[in-house]
């Protein structure tokens, strides 16, 4: 399952400055593990104590994964995965 992952500025030190990187996996956790194998250190920035970091939001095709299974959320072939830091609105 090939997907495209959008990396926020703050985490691009792990991807050599790349904004979009390819990854494989059928669930978000598999995608993150696959990212980690190519971009070491990334997983520790995203996952704390087995759940997503409090200030990290991950969207699969624009839907927040926290409402579709979290790290176990299904990721379909060709999906766009977007990682963003949590910031204020209002």
């Amino acid at each position, binding site marked *: 399952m090939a997907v495209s992952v959008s990396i926020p*500025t703050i985490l691009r030190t792990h991807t050599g400055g790349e904004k979009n990187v390819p990854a494989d996996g059928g669930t978000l956790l598999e995608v993150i593990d696959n990212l980690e194998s190519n971009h070491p250190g990334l997983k520790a920035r995203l996952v704390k104590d087995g759940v997503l970091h*409090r200030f*990290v939001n991950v969207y699969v095709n624009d*839907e927040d994964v*926290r*409402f579709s299974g979290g790290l176990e959320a299904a990721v379909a072939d060709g999906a766009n995965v977007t990682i963003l830091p949590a*910031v*204020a609105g*209002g």
Partner: protein
Amino acid sequence: MAKYDSLLDALGDTPLVGLPRLSPSGDVRLWAKLEDRNPTGSIKDRPALAMVEAAERDGRLTPGCTILEPTSGNTGISLAMAAKLKGYDLVCVMPENTSEERRQLLEAYGARIIYSPAAGGSNQAVATAKGIAAENPSWVMLYQYGNPANAGAHYATTGPEILRDLPTVTHFVAGLGTTGTLVGVGRYLREQKPDVQIIAAEPRYGELVYGLRNLDEGFVPELYDPEVLTGRFSVGSHDALRRTRELLENEGIFAGISTGAILHAALAAAEKAAGAGERADIVFIVADAGWKYLSTGAYGGSLDEAAAKLDGHLWA
């Protein structure tokens, strides 16, 4: 009733209008709650007045006080109106990448604006305001991100109005900023209708706005309660603009850009319900009208051009 003793008394009880052209079918219908029909033209009049009146009851706000608030615009404009009528001074901390109209309106109401840097968006405005509050202990920061009166206003007014006007409501869709609307309306509707879906539409901005130095500078409003929500969409400026224009083109509603983002999420929910063969009455919020965004070029020219112009701006 359409006669009121003062402008403040005219707050709320806004129209709920059907969207016959954008609704997928007679079984899956969209309904717009026109919050631009509030005294200063946005949904923020509800929490702003509620926060001021709660602070007056607590004795935190007394005549002549200065109110301080971090805001990307609409809350500031609402507070400025309330402050003018009630005899307070207002200092707004606003990111510099907001629309020109917001600045002009705030100044017309007599508010003072302190700008926070564009990089970091509202996060930076919150941090700057907290710093200013520490230096000016006599100023009263109402703090919309953590003030229970914000969500409380929607629990007490917006939610009951929706259920009164549309007892068959199945979905509620609103913007996610302070989270006050979603948490307040969501809690009320959930108590009355346990199966109701509460869906957030969150603006996705250009990279500048996410320019934190480290992840621990991230921000989740104290009011946020994920238990109330059933879904959350991130909507970019291109989709938000496209839907804003569709709303005007098909239904005649001239709304601000954040409403386009909310409509985008509402249409996604509508499509899901239609696909599953379920009946749905989907209420979404028209947070404000388009007047304050005319200078951004949102309503004319190609979508790509308009989206490019918005990049780096806070439009919700």
